[in-house]
C-alpha cells in the first residue's frame, strides 16, 4: 500500500459515518498520522485522542492479560469519543451526547467487519 492509498481507510469512514449517533469520524495510523476523516473540527487534534486512548487500552490489556480490545469510550467534557482498533489504525468515532456507546459499537464493529462474536 502506498502512502497515498487512503481508499480502504476512506472506506472505513464511509462505513461508519452514517451510524445514528455518530457525529464525526477519524481514521488514524498507530503512529498518530491522520489517514482519513470526516469531521468538522481539527482532525489532528481529534485523531490524537483516538491514538492516546488506543495505546492506553493496549498497554492496560497487556498488563492485565485482557486483550483483545473490542472498543473503548472516553468522556471528555460534554463529548464522548469511541475508539475501535483495526489492524493498521484506530477508528475514532465522535458520538452525539444521546448516543448509546454499546449500540454504536455493535453497528460500527459490524460495519468494519468485526462481528460481535469474532475479532
Amino acid at each position, binding site marked *: 500500500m502506498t502512502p497515498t492509498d487512503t481508499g480502504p481507510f476512506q472506506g472505513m469512514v464511509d462505513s461508519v459515518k452514517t451510524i445514528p449517533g455518530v457525529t464525526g469520524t477519524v481514521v488514524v495510523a498507530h503512529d498518530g498520522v491522520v489517514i482519513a476523516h470526516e469531521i468538522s473540527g*481539527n482532525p489532528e*487534534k481529534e485523531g*490524537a*485522542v483516538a491514538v*492516546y*486512548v488506543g495505546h*492506553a*487500552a493496549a*498497554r*492496560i*490489556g497487556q*498488563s*492485565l492479560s*485482557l*486483550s*483483545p*480490545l*473490542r*472498543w*473503548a*469510550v*472516553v*468522556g*471528555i*467534557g*460534554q*463529548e464522548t469519543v469511541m475508539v475501535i482498533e483495526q489492524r493498521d489504525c484506530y477508528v475514532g468515532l465522535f458520538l452525539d451526547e444521546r448516543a448509546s*456507546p454499546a449500540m454504536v*459499537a455493535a453497528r460500527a464493529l459490524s460495519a468494519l467487519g468485526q462481528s460481535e462474536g469474532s*475479532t
Partner: protein
Amino acid sequence: MKDILDEINAVVGVRGSFLCDEEGAVVRSAMPETYDPAELAAVGRVLTQTMAGLVLARRRKVRDIDLVYRQARLVAKNTGNGCLCILGSPDLNVAFLNLTADLAIRELKQASKQAPLAAPAEAVPAEVPPAPRPAIQTLIEFLELLLQELEGHGIGRQDLVKILSHRLRKLGESYPFLGSLVSADDRLDPASLPLDSVEPKTMAEGLAALIHGLCFSLRGMMGEEKAEEAYIGVYDAFYAEHRADFVTLGLGDRLRKIVHQPLPSAHSGVDIHLD
C-alpha cells in the same frame, strides 16, 4: 474507604475495584488476589497519564474511560485527584454501575476534603497537611489553557508572551503585583504572585483585566469572530468545572462577556504590533 470499594464490588458483574491517586499509585484495592499489585500500579499509571494527556490535548476534564475487552471491561472514573478503576465482565451494565460508582466518588471527594487521600502503605506520611489550593490558581490555570488554545490557532508562544507583557505594562499602575507573572522561560509563574499581601479578589481583578486585554489584542489579530469562538470554547468548559472558584474570587460569570467588551480607557491605547 475500603467499604466504598466493597459497595462497588457488590454491583452485579463487577470483579474488583481499586483507587489510584493522581500519580497513578494504588492507594486502596479490593481486587481479587490473582492480580499482582505491580500490574495494578502499571494500570493506574497508564490511566492517570492518559487522563492528564487528554486534558492537555483537549482542555477538557476527562469524566471516565471505558475499555471493553473480549473477556473483561475496565471502567476508570475520574475522582478529581486520581481515578477509581472498576474491573468487570464485558457485559457489565455501566449505567447501573454508575449509580453506585458516582455515589462512591462523591463520598471519596467528601472524605478527601476532610483528609488528604491516604498515602501508599510504604510512603512516609507528611507531617503537615498540604495547604488548600488557592482559588487564584484556577484563574492562572484558565489563562494558561487560553494560551495553549491560542497556540493551537497558530499564534506562537513568544508572540503571546509579547502581548501579555504589553498588557502587563499597561496594567502596571493599577495592578503592580502582576509584574513578574511571565517568567524568563515564557511560562506563567503563579509563585511570583504575592498571595500573602494582596487580597485574592484584588488579585483576581488584576488577572481579569489582563485576560480582558489579551482578548482585546486577539480580536485585532484573529478577527472578532475567531477570537470570540476560541475564547468562549475554553471559557465555557473551564467555568463549568471551576464555577465555585470564580464565584469565590468575586468574578461570577463576568469573564464570559469580556471578550465582547471594549477596554477601559486607562488600559487601552495603541495596541501592540507583532512582527
